[in-house]
């Protein structure tokens, strides 16, 4: 086990102690060691955004991030955002209802980037949305319904805030 390194990660609120080769990316460790396959393996060079997870609430390409570096940070994957059909996060709900999902391969990453965007900027303009998710490729939708879903999620959230 000379190539293995003990690391501790905090993923979706749960602590994990792992023994991994030091060169393993966060994406590989999430998928292969923790069976969290919601983050997708696609271009593996930070171009498509399908592997996006949140690190301390900020989106990162987990394919370019070494797992060892993620120690001490709060990692949120799509699996940690909700608990199934009856409990969708408002952003997930908006993506489903606005037709923003076709093949779905880009969806987990886009949903997480949107969650992070709305955390920082609850009322983003169309331009701010386009800039915030420009690192996500989607070949199916042409993006329009995704942008509409993000605008709708922001409106929904603003509505809730006003009620409260």
């Amino acid at each position, binding site marked *: 086990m000379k190539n293995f390194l003990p690391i501790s990660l905090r993923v979706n609120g749960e602590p994990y102690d792992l023994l991994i080769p030091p060169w393993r990316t966060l994406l590989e460790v999430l*998928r*292969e060691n923790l*069976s*969290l*396959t*919601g*983050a*997708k*393996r*696609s*271009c*593996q*060079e930070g*171009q*498509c955004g*399908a592997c996006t997870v949140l690190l301390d609430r900020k989106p990162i390409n987990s394919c370019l991030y070494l797992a060892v570096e993620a120690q001490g940070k709060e990692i949120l*994957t*799509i*699996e940690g*955002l*909700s608990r*199934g*059909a009856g409990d*969708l996060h408002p952003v*997930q709900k908006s*993506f*489903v*209802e*606005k*037709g923003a*999902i*076709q*093949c*779905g*391969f*880009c*969806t*987990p990453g886009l*949903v997480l980037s949107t969650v992070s965007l709305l955390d920082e900027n609850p009322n983003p303009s*169309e331009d701010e*949305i*386009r*800039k915030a*998710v*420009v690192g*996500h*490729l*989607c*070949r*199916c*939708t*042409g*993006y*329009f*319904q*995704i*942008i*509409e879903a993000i605008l709708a999620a922001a409106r929904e959230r603003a509505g809730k805030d006003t009620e409260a």
Partner: protein
Amino acid sequence: MTIEPHEDHAIIGKPVPKKDGWIKATGEAKYADDLFMPGMLYGKLLRSPYPHAKISHIDASRAEKLPGIRTVITGKDFPGIKYGNMPQTRDYLPLAIEKVRYIGDEVAAIAAIDEDSAEEALDLIRVEYEPLPAVFDAEDAMKPGAPQLHDHAATNISAESAFQFGDVDKGFAESDYLREDLFETQPIKQGMLEPHACIGLWDETDKITLWASKQSPYVVWKQLAMGLGVEASKIRVIQTYVGGGFSEGEQEAMAMDFCAVLLSKKSRRPVKFVHTMDEVLSIGHMRHPLKIWLKTGAKRDGTLLAQHLKIVANGGAYSSIGQLSMYLPGAMLNLPYRVPNIRYEAHRVYTNNGFCGALRGHTIPQICFARDSQLDTIAEKLGLDPIEIRLKNARQPGEVTPNGFRLTTFGFTECLEKAVEASGWREKYGKLPRYRGIGIGCGSLVSGARIMGHSASSAQVNIHEDGTVFLVTGSTDVGQGADTVLSMIAAEVLGVRMEDIRFAMVDTDMTPADPGTFSSRVTFWTGNAVKLASEDAREQLAEIAAQKLKADVKDIVFRDRQVYVGHDPQRGLSFGELVRLAQHRLGRIIMGKGSYTSGDALIDFRTGYGNMSPAYTPSACVAEVEIDPETGQVTVTGIWGAHDCGFPLNPMLVKGQVLGATVMGIGQALYENLIRIEGKVMNPSFRDYKMPLTEDVPWLANVGHVNVITRDPSGPFGAKEAGEGAAAGVIAAVANAVYQATGVRFKSLPISPDKILFGLKEARGEDGDAQAKRQSLTSERSKGGFDESD
């Protein structure tokens, strides 16, 4: 008991969210790479570094000795049977045996305990190659003495198509204006985000199972049987979630599929393969780059009299479905414009490049780019409005085209009118400032093609005692929403809710045989089968309900989980109660069956004659662009389309299809190009292969889509194609808009900034050579005093 389309649908016509949307939104959907099996090994493929070479020897002994390596196979481990779709195009081998034909051709495969070991072992396989002369340009490959790729094709022709309808010479002779242009289109990739992936298992009973990302699993099933030389019944293909279709390797059995199962046989373990994106973008299945020569004759008033189309396609190293690829452009020259005389010649040529296949619209969008670009030029030369010339030649419902297409519904005129209206064309055309322009492009597509042996689709509707329905078809959801639309059809007919329907994913041992997901056939063909199957089940239930309720079968209504007498809704029972009555009391398990195929004979590829599809969709697209004259950058500032999908069963999903196809069209028009130098792909990465991003598409306020509703009599609830047709005219719309903005006609794709800058320079008269070169691409002959100069 046929349900006619009417406004009073419970589910059809509503923007129902995609059935698997929440499964995908939560990350729960398992794509092939998300599957892990106990004891699973990881496979990697060794690829040829040469575009054309003989394999004289392969020595894998060093690789086999590396720790972690379980098995290495080469082409000789397979029976050496060539496979493919049609008898004349069977030129694939699972792994190359005697020679390789392009950079990336697969020569050996490894199974190891992890991907890193497999990757390392690839470097230890010694392959001795004898490089052969290679040819990359299609026209060079057609010349006598050119390097020959396949023994069966002395002239490197992989497929050809030639036909004529009417009297083209007479049509040209009677024309007032003749125009010839040469257009060139580039190779582009499907660009799905999910890399090809599969897991193969050859178990102790000799059952061969493949879990894979496939959009046409039965094609894969047949091809695996063919290439492995085993009975098809031994093979089982199980579809996983598909991360984008667009007709890449998901359409056929690929080297990885064959190697996964054979490595599994030898290692007695499941074996997983996942391509890297570098592999996906380098290897076969891409859009055909075409050289398109088009000659058109028109009357002074713009009436089109004759067209002669010649195509040379750089097909790459293998055929895929080349015969169809070559038939389509000529066939679709008959739509959406009325051209009474047509002559067509097409050659698909083998070259030492990655091979070509289908991609959203197949070879049709390229032809639409050429034809609608030229049509604008003709209109300009004749002093006609681009919309008027299109309206004048627009085909109408009820017409039969010279090649035998029967147009049932065809709202092309309405598409033109709606696209003009939505885009504000009349206020913009010819009135925009310099470097801004607006253009139109049109196209047409089939609703499923009757082309090969098996074209029928079928469905089973199994009704369960809890009142839910298990819907089984052979069609795959590749993101387009087949799971949802087919379920909507079943739910509408049976009067249950969407959540009551479960949609089966394809498993070739369990689900009915089906040709696959291509040529925009699923909603129409499988949709009709689902409707028939649901009606069959409902009839069985209605009979039982009529007895129970002492009513006439004709009066039984199924709606919102209730079954009742139409004129007396108080007399009824719930759908679940009725099913339990049938099953428990009467011992009748309710299962509905339905099959659909169009009533037409197969197309005769030699004559090109026949009704390819039961229904055709026209579309029109208007694009507005802005050019930066300093950088040559083109920005699409607005895009509006109208498309006749018959009847939108789910308008939200139709919109997603149409807009997604539109942005792919923008990508081909402006950005995408698989750059190859001597067969080597220079940009096999999403960093360098530029697909549209969020910032490349127009603002929401400048995007419009109009459904033209014609309710096709043979489509399910009046529906026709929606997935591909809308893409057909987009490239031409952008090209025509760029012409309006710059005064320069671009005939080769993509219309990249360098071309714009050279074009602008040339238009200012600063580049004489380029001007001379461009003029050689064009020739025109006018009669009766029309302008002679370009």
